Every structure is written in C-alpha cells, then in structure tokens.
C-alpha cells in the first residue's frame, strides 16, 4: 500500500529551537519524496525534494530508505516558519502525489 504518515498534527516550538517534522512512507517502488509548505491561506509551495539534496530556508530533509523516513529538519526555527507542512510521495508512472495529513508548525516568540 502507498501511504505517507505524518504522526504529529501540531508541533509547537519557541523561536530559535530546533525543529524536526516527521514523515514516514510506505511504497514498494523507488520513492520520490517532497516537502510542501502552505502558509496561512496561501497555495502550497514546494519546499524540498529529496533528489535535490539542498537546503531551502534553512530546512533539510534526508531520505532514509532503511527507516522509510524523510524527516524535515531545521536547527533554529523562526516565527515566519509557522505554516502547514506536507510530506508527499510520488507514486506510479502518472506522477500521482500522495500526501500525508500535514503537520502544523507553530513557532512562538
């Protein structure tokens, strides 16, 4: 079964604290994983894709095939990071994206 699990609905931290948003996936093929971010009442924006192996806005994510995880990390959270974060799995030849339920990150001053 193809599935993306984000176990935390809400992650609440203080500014400057480290952040880790968890994502686990279930997929029999070779996975392609993404993190999308949705700021309040805005469109989803691509944040990271695992094949790029880059850091965007201080966020990084490493694909761990052994643990079937793609956790999103940032060493020092900023208030402007407050948003909804979705982990997504590209499944199948038709580029279908399967989304996790999302994690709301709230960064407090």
């Amino acid at each position, binding site marked *: 079964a193809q599935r993306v699990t984000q176990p935390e609905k809400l992650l609440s931290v203080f500014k400057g604290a480290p952040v880790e948003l968890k994502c686990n996936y279930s997929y029999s093929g070779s996975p392609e994983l993404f993190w999308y971010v949705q700021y309040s009442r805005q469109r989803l924006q*691509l944040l990271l*894709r695992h094949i790029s192996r880059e850091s965007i806005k201080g966020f990084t994510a490493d694909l761990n095939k052994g643990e079937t995880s793609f956790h999103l990390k940032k060493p020092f959270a900023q208030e402007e990071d407050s948003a909804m974060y979705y982990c997504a799995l590209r499944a199948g030849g038709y*580029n279908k994206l399967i989304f996790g339920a999302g994690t709301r990150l709230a960064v407090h001053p």
Partner: protein
Amino acid sequence: DTAVSQTPKYLVTQMGNDKSIKCEQNLGHDTMYWYKQDSKKFLKIMFSYNNKELIINETVPNRFSPKSPDKAHLNLHINSLELGDSAVYFCASSQGSPQYFGPGTRLLVL
C-alpha cells in the same frame, strides 16, 4: 506573472446548485491535476489530465466532471452540490516532477 491561476477564489452557493471552477497554467506543462483539501486540511488527488487526456480518476462521485479544453486549462464542474463538497480545491500542473499549485478555490456549500 501567476504560473497556475484559478477562478473564482471564493465560491459560496446553495445545496443542489451546479458550479464550475477554472484553472489555467502558463508554464507549458503537459499535466494538470485537481486536489481537494478538506476541513481537516487533508489533501487528496481527484483527477489528472495529460495533454487533455484523463489519466488519474480517483474514487470521486460522478457529480464531479473535469474538462480539459487544451493542455493549459483544466476545469472542474460540480453538479448537485452537497454540504460535504465544501472544501478548498487546488489545481496543479507539472512537466514530470515537481507539481506547482494554484492559489486554491474556497467552496462553501450552504
């Protein structure tokens, strides 16, 4: 320049009505999608078209009918609207990967 645009941004209507949402992309992508984001913020794909051909059709009530007049446009028509159709509908497009999303259409059925 907006890459993926949707109209209208907000749609408030009565149960039983028929409504359409339009999506246009100027990225030259071959593939377009419709997603539904429910009140719990869960996102699920509904349809996908590639070069005007339907390629993904998830278990969506047949009251929902997508139409792609050309590869830059994908419209969503909804017949006999129900309360449960209230959601934010996102259009997206891609050329392979990744997908780029529109701003969403917030539909409220009263």
